[in-house]
């Protein structure tokens, strides 16, 4: 029983017909080919699937595609502008906040949303608020540094 949905993804209007059971992450990856959003678990805990839905960081594995009808979705592919990294992405690179890169899109999406809510966040804030994003490679040390540095850069950006 396919349903028609219309939404904006990374600034572009998208119309599609989807089965009701399709998760947003599946829609993004399989229908739209936006494979930067990753699946790392099946209990909505790892956060590798994090995207922005109407400006809020959400886990796209935990929401049906049909629930995104009429909404605006931003994925990791929508963060850099004209090939230039978003300040948070640049901070992750500068601080070596990624190793294998698999959790990274989710981390960047969570971090930018967190900073939007709390621009003057501390390291402690970051550790607490990144509770929904797992990383197995970095031990989080450089991710925390990257988010704090990214926050400063986002504040400074025009």
């Amino acid at each position, binding site marked *: 029983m396919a349903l028609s949905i219309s939404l904006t993804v990374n600034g572009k209007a998208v119309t599609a017909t989807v089965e009701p059971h399709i998760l947003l992450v599946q829609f993004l990856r399989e229908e739209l080919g936006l494979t930067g959003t990753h*699946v790392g678990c099946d209990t909505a805990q790892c956060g590798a699937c994090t995207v922005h839905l109407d400006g809020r960081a959400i886990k796209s594995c935990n929401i049906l595609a049909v629930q995104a009808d009429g909404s605006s979705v931003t994925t*990791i*592919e929508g963060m*850099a502008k004209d090939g230039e990294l978003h300040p948070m992405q640049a901070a992750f*690179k500068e601080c070596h906040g990624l190793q*294998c890169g*698999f959790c990274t899109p989710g981390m960047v999406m969570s971090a930018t949303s967190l900073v939007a809510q709390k621009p003057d966040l501390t390291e402690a804030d970051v*550790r607490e608020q990144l509770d929904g994003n797992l990383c197995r490679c970095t031990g989080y040390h450089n991710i*925390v540094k990257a988010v704090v540095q990214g926050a400063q850069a986002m504040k400074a950006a025009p």
Partner: protein
Amino acid sequence: MNAPETPDTHRMIGAAVRRKEDYRFLTGNGQYTDDVVLPRQTYAVFLRSPYAHAKIRSIDIAAAKEAPGVVAIFTGADMAGENVGGLPCGWLIHNIDGKPMNEPPHPVIAHTKVRHVGDQVALIIAESVKEAKDAIDLIEVDYDVLPAVVDTATAADPGQPQVHDEAPNNLCYTWGHGDKAATDAAFAKAAHVTTLDIVNQRLVPNAIEPRAVNASYSKSDDSYTVYVANQNPHVERLLMAAFVLSLPESKLRIIAPDVGGGFGSKIYLYAEDVALTWASKKVRRPIKWTCERSEAFLTDAHGRDHVTKAELAMDADGKFLGLRVHTTANMGAYLSTFATAIPTILYATLLAGQYATPAIYAEVKAVFTNTVPVDAYRGAGRPEATYVLERIVETAAREMNIDPAELRRRNFIRSWPYTTPVGLTYDSGDYSGLLDRAMQLADVEGFPARREESKKNGKLRGLGYSCYIEACGLAPSNLAGALGARAGLFEAGEIRVHPTGSVTVFTGSHSHGQGHETTFAQVVADRLGVSMDNIEIVHGDTGRIPFGMGTYGSRSIAVGGSAIMKALDKIEEKAKKIAAHLLEASAEDIEFKDGIFRVAGTDRTKAFAEVSLAAYVPHNFPLDKLEPGLNENAFYDPSNFTYPSGAYLCEVEVDPDTGETRIQKFTAVDDFGNIVNPMIVEGQVHGGIGQGIGQAMLERAVYDNESGQLMSGSFMDYAMPHASDLPNFDVETSKGTPCVHNPLGVKGCGEAGAIGSPPAVINAIIDALSPLGVTDLQMPATPHRVWVAMHAAADASAARGASTPA
């Protein structure tokens, strides 16, 4: 940061160069195996056993085959009928009596019996995952459920359910290492013996990218191309082609694209890799499988799972006289690719640690149980050895009332090379220097005051040490072979210089987070004077790269980097000949520095790009002496392991009301020899410490004894470390003692953090709790376990108080 200062500012080696690979990962343009979708793609799902141990009486796939979208269904019987081999074990261990280990069959898909929850029973291929899953529900399997055995310590006891007919008493082997007689003699004359019972608990590696495979068959040349999230594509190809599917290797191409973490779990030849490859020819369409997380818990090789009794004999001054270790190691239901070497070759050989203990003996019993197979997980045997040693040393210090740093100093090895009684020759080191520095960085002097402060706030503060050494940079092939390895452990590197002077490097190493695309380019940039932007590192594709053994065992820079250095030597030698031809000089008179070839003592030069162009536009070459082209490869086989070492200190605060432990400070000082990229090295240590703290405080794979079910089967129940669980780390990479036997002087750093950290954490918690009478604690030190230990100690001391005569 603290990298050794690079004397020459435009040298790349030693610089914290930011990573070339980051752009694609940060912008969502990485290509991981699940991202690959091929034309006419089909999707695979595996039917898996819900029982830990059962006979398969029958499998009825009739209804399932008719389900919508189903392309094919295969069972173990189908594979057995076509002589598909079993999954091989790559390391032969012998029993103490000389008999080879028991090696039961390891079918790709279970045929007559299932032996762990999650064991493959059937492969369903359909037009979509959903249709495959709907079809699975229609498969009827008639199981004859059998009793299961899961507990490591008792698996070999008489009367236990037998996992394999070929392994009576569930024994794989009983192996011994060291000098039993000398060790027993040492114990006989000891002034003090410390004994410790240790459980090194089973862990699940849980790389964030689940395993995935996409296998396709090409009818035009009867060949296969397999994308797989794997750490060692050539090994995968050799095992699958030669030992399982009887294919010529030239007909099988393995591509490991971007891989999201491995930690050992993506080394092995897995059933799913083989089943999909085999089936892709049957259905003549590409087949894709991506592991779900709860499925990963049941199928990825698990780590650790040792039960050990250790004894340390000392004289009255705390000098170590002998160490005696008995370990039972769980192999799981089947032998995974390297399983047998982990609790033997990679474990017992490290039991000297940093100490000059003269006599050591270890006996290791490997057992089968109805659990997921166990194999290497970050550290692979060395965390287990370090945990035994550093826990028993600190316990001994407490028992003998000697400061734990002092006890170590009394026993440190102080001159190199040093040959240990367990078979390794450490080439270089400075253990007491590392400990001095770590104690300084950790401000051990200020600890008593900090403890008092904590006490005033109602908290218990503790400090714990761990001085580790590890053997990595695997491995000298002849030594490995003598120890039972069925493979060599060299590495391959090919340098292809293009006419315009840019360079492509083909390496048998594989990066799944380690940053080789950057670090290997740094090595090449320094030697050839070519900019980092003009150097491309290619890894992960057997179709493009000469045979290499892949990445694990902290071997990439030490062995892969050395192969590249040897290839660079050949490039330099040939390039000099070409330059000599161009400059009309003799090759011996040509100097090469910073990308310029110069006739010694003159100002006559040629740039690298001029030489590379000439190599491919070989006008007037003396072709009898000089071939065109500038493309060389090398295979490097190391002459020894490398021996990184370090001193770690952990400071904790325990809440006596809740048992909750917070790490206040974690200090790590490591000697990795020479460093290529200090930023990447520190990142490796951070990640390793994160996993080590995970083991020490949070993680445990739990099986139910009765049913054999994995109780900790998802991220809901298995406590992965979150950012809020871990502190910042104070990591310093010491200037170090360069490795004496490889061209870069490097030792490797990928596993050290996971090896050195668990004992430091537990020693710290016990130090905090020792005023209450707690002397031991098993990992993970969850708040509940800490609370129980505190109360048990209080009850014990109350009982002692009650029995004291008035």
